[in-house]
């Protein structure tokens, strides 16, 4: 329980840090830390596979690409563009509504006591693999096709760019 509270605090602080930080690189780093904490949550919940995947995919690949782009563009320091005058209060208002709603749900449903430790091999790689290739085969394949399309799209974009250079 203490572990959970500490981690929760870290997760909240890093999330806030990511939002508040003026420097894009710092924001990205806070986000990485946040992902790492979330990964530890998964571990605590007995899902090491998802935890490790979280670290590999989000912290290890996606955020590295983010950093890459930030550095390449040289936009580390965000300019103080405050032309979003009306969005800010609206966003805060909506966020408050969301939090209140969440708290209300948690208190009214009172499901906290019913969380049970999942069975040993629920999060094991074998179990996940079995699930993916039997019950969730269609979504799995659909996702892979989506990713393939995205990849092809990226390649097409760069190829077009190259031709433009030559002419």
């Amino acid at each position, binding site marked *: 329980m203490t572990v959970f509270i500490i981690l929760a605090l870290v997760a909240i602080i890093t999330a806030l840090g990511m939002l508040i930080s003026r420097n894009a690189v710092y924001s990205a780093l806070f986000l990485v830390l946040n992902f790492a904490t979330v990964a530890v949550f998964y571990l605590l919940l007995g899902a090491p596979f998802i935890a490790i995947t979280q670290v590999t995919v989000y912290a290890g690949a996606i955020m590295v690409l983010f950093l890459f782009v930030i550095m390449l563009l040289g936009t580390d320091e965000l300019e103080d563009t405050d032309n979003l005058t009306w969005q800010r209060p609206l966003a805060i208002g909506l966020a408050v509504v969301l939090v209140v709603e969440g708290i209300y749900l948690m208190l009214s449903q009172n499901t906290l006591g019913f969380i049970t430790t999942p069975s040993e091999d629920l999060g094991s790689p074998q179990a996940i693999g079995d699930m993916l290739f039997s019950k969730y085969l269609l979504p799995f394949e659909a996702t892979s096709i989506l990713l393939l399309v995205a990849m092809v799209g990226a390649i097409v974009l760069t190829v077009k*760019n190259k031709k*433009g*250079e030559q002419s």
Partner: protein
Amino acid sequence: MTESDFATRLNDRFPEGVTADEREGYQGYIIAADKLIEFATALRDEFEFDYLSSVTGVDYPDEGKLEAVYHAYKTIGGAELVFKVQTDRENPEIPSLIDIYPGADFQEREAWDLLGIKFTGHPDLRRILLWEGFEGHPLRKDWQEAYYEADKKPFKSRWPKAEYTRAEAKNPYGANVKYPDKFDPEKWVPEGEDALYGSLAKYETTDKDGLKTDHLTVNLGPQHPSTHGVFRIAATLDGEKIMNLNPVMGYLHRNHEKIGERNTYLQNMPFTDRLDYLSSLSNNFGYAIAVEKLIGIEVPERAEYIRVIMAELTRVQNHLFAIGMFLNDIGAFFTPSLYAIEERELVLDVFEMVTGSRMMCNYLRFGGLARDLPDGSLQKIRDLVFDRLPRKTDEMDRFLSENEILRSRTVGQGYLSTEDAIKYSAAGPVLRASGVPYDIRRADPYSIYDRFKFDVAVRYNGDIYDRYYIRLDEIRESIKILQQAVEQIPEGEIQTGKPRYQMKVPKGESYGRVEGPKGELGFYLVSDGTGNPYRYHVRAPSFINLTAFGPMCKGLKVADVVAVLGSIDIVLGETDR
């Protein structure tokens, strides 16, 4: 076409503005400044002098004149053509030849820097060897350096009693440097930097979709591991692609030529060692030839043979080093270079045995040599050139030349076309790798090179790989020459007349050039009949080969710049002088 034929043709073509130089001991032609462009164009297009080797200047304060001196050659071989342009000393302006011979670029900048000749029409006439806040033009005769003592050595204050005072005692720190008016070195911002960056491409380009691309300006150097010394490359990059590039040099400048003009003729002999410190014997050779032309002294047979042997050994060891360091530049972690250096050490052993020194050999004298070959040294050379060196060269060839990474890094990269190589006055291996079979040992033979059978190494692709491989070829050709030389070497004298400290050098000018390992090494001397050279100019191949560096690198990646630089093979001691 004989000499006089040429003179008549030239006279017909230019009835005015071109006159033969009839001063005592001088050759060539004096061109009127306003005829220069026309003359040079005709020279290149009609008279086949397509290769401008050297541009320099001489200061004649007594006549109130500055004179620019040009040496041009035909790449099909033959003797040089010297032409000069005289201009007023107070307001020296000469049209720039950069459009006709782009190889004049750096040399004209050097002449502007050191002599203050303004080349009108030069697009980027900045100082090149000295810094932008420098006061005066040091090669002018009235310019005096800090701690100036006297015009000529040996200084009366020190000679013959060898007394000296420390220069700082006469002149406290800070009081010995001259600055331009209103110049505060503490607050000085180098405006030259802006000019330098301004000479590069634009910072931003816009592509077809309207996306702006910011270019990065990167300085490789002055402190950089692969610039072979204190050398700087200012480059604008698009990602890692080189958009434009400007070499910046002069960090090792010591005004070699001014010091050389203070020295006596013989004092310059060890001083030439310090130019290209990897190949001191070739430097000695070039200087000795220039002075011997002035004096008109013959060199004994045996001495000529020893000179050739030493010069060719110098070429072998220089190329070994160049190949090793080039491999290092493309990222082979020291292994090839150390194997090359192992062989080079053996050659240096010979140098040490013969001359007493491994690098600063100071071996040649006017009309001969400092000393004869010691016992056993010839046998040592024989062992090297008949056994060890050919074997090891083949071994290096076998291990390196077919390496896939080396090939993929070098083949087709850093291309220099035949026309460009000639245009930019590239010399030596750089020129020959671009398909110009121009080797001074064949094209305009000096010493006894006409007696040996060897081929001029030439390759036709003009890329980094060819510039690398031609050095292996040249090592093999040099070994051929060495094998003949050690077989044929006669007994006999090694010095004409008595060795003397002070030579009587008649008035006149001379240009002595040798095929140094890095290219055409020329020494332009003007004598006023005294014991010191009036003008002493070095045509440094490392310096002039760099003219083609920028064009070679355009469009390559950052990593290739280093490879291109390694393939040109510069030594900063010679580049900066």
